[in-house]
């Protein structure tokens, strides 16, 4: 049941477009040969998805670290809940808030008040990045938090007692022990980003184009289903390859331990 739809996609990708759009059964590789026509979309996605993942990671890690290790236990639960709450509102509504902030009457006007000119923020890759980081931050914070929380405090205390500076404790103990969480979080965010459509649509103003946007256009505007199916199949393939490579690398990094599994 789960696989059938994916098989149909692969099947369709070998078909031809009907005269008025849609799908006509055939066997041709033209759709794959034609993939170059969507190269920009793939390029954007392959560049921006990892970039977004890394940004999320950079912002999320210190937060998760604070929550797991530094925060007052009494406040911890509340602080954690506060991280998820935004995640419970529709991504649509949250992105829409950024339209108001990044639009001409929001942040740019504020910047202009301080005399730094009036930059255009909305409908740029920057806006899309902000939306992405904002949308997916909680997904990154949680796995890292869980991993950090599991670390035995005595290890950290021992390290401090033995006179190693905090940064060293962090690099040699905390970081390696939290890698599993980092891997899980990055994986989750990366997967979601590869198929992203809404955030570029809403915050990119049709100017920042992801594979997801190309797919929606192919199915709902030009109605070239076979080509759309080919693009979708390629996207899944690219993802599988990247994810496999990534998991391998993580496994090697963590010394072949098994707990760096996906979930």
């Amino acid at each position, binding site marked *: 049941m789960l696989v059938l739809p994916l098989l149909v996609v692969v099947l369709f990708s070998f078909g031809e477009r009907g005269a008025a759009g849609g799908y006509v059964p055939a066997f041709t590789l033209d759709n794959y040969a034609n993939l170059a026509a969507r190269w920009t979309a793939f390029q954007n996605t392959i560049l921006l998805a990892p970039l977004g993942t890394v940004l999320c990671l950079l912002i999320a890690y210190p937060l998760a670290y604070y929550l797991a290790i530094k925060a007052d236990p009494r406040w911890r639960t509340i602080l954690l809940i506060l991280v998820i709450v935004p995640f419970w509102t529709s991504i649509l509504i949250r992105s829409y808030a950024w339209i108001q902030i990044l639009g001409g009457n929001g942040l740019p006007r504020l910047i202009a008040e301080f005399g730094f000119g009036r930059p255009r923020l909305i409908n740029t890759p920057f806006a899309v990045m902000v939306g992405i980081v904002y949308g997916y931050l909680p997904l990154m914070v949680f796995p890292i938090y869980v991993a950090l929380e599991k670390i035995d405090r005595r290890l950290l205390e021992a390290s401090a007692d033995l006179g190693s500076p905090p940064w060293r404790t962090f690099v040699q103990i905390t970081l390696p022990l939290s890698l599993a969480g980092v891997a899980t979080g990055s994986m989750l965010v990366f997967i979601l980003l590869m198929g992203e459509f809404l955030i570029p649509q809403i915050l990119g103003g049709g100017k920042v184009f992801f594979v997801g*946007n190309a797919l929606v256009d192919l199915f709902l505007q030009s*109605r070239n289903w076979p080509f759309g199916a080919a693009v979708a199949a390629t996207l899944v393939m690219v993802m599988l390859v990247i994810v496999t490579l990534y998991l391998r690398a993580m496994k090697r990094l963590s010394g072949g331990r098994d707990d760096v599994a996906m979930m």
Partner: protein
Amino acid sequence: MTDRRATATEKHFLQKLESYRKGSLSRRDFLAQTGLGLATAVMAGTMPGLARRAWAQGSIGDRVVIATWPNYHAPESLEAFRAATGATVDVNVFGSNEEMLAKLQAGGASWDVVVATNYTISTYVDQAIIEELDLSRIPNFDPSAFEARFADPGVINGKTYAIPRNIGTTGYCVNTSELDSATPTTWKEFWDLSRDQLSGRTMVHDYQLTAIGNALKYYGYSFNSVDPKELADAERLLIETKPHLFAINSDYQPSMRSGDAAMSMCWTGDAVQLQRDIPEIAYVLGKEGGELWSDFFTIPASAPHRDAAYALINFLLAPEMAAQEARFHGYPTGDSRVDALLPDEMRSSPILYPAADILNALEFGAAITLTNPVRAEIMARFKSA
């Protein structure tokens, strides 16, 4: 709270309707008991056809689904329809005719009324997506009230498949307070301004027909061209302009209002709505030409609530109701009976009723553009560039 009360009335209404049909209740009692008497009396004057017909047909069901465009129907009209017939109108809005066709083609979907633009009708007929209309069920439609050019696309091989609802043009709106020069008058100026003084402030429709069509106009080609060389020129212009655009989006009202955008491709009704609040916004129809269109009511072959579909179309075509709709959406209806009911400021508006010489330079979109794969690919390349 209001919601619950509404459903209760509905149930009550349906019960009474049932007794009325079985003959256990006279028409007068029925109307009095359901409280519809007053409503009907008020409406009967303006739409004699409807009030009686709906009852004569018996129950039309409690739901009708319409596929249409954003900001296109006054909520009061739909509410009035529900009050008169008991059927709730469910509105689905679309971004383009292409999207509508895609979803209709996917099949399985259950729209009862589809509001489609002239250039799509023949494709819908070829694909057997829509069916021939039974004009006897739409007495409020009077073909003689329409100019032939607006009503003709709905008639194919002598059969009427679609009924004109309203007409409009595609031009561009520009905030004149942001311009150094005089208000532009051509498409050439639109594309030049967007790469020059209004760089970063211009919006182009996310819609192949108008984005490509109006780029073709820069060179004076036909709006509907599918000639490879001419399309290549248009594509070059689009891609050259792309870095200067604020956005590629058919929903330009919010950005024009907030001042983020200063110029945008624009449809008649949006221009009227924008100008109502921001008088500095001017509406320009390029001298070179551009698009003139009319939108039609159609009924898909797969419509699950056909009776309600006919009732809704007929209801909205009643001149009084159509005039109320026109005041809301700001498009002319093309129906001379409705024009007579519009307020003076609408009737004298050059946005709604452009001068004949400008109007005659405009072209109707051609069916070929809807399904032409080259145009679709150009649009995709423009967006991903």
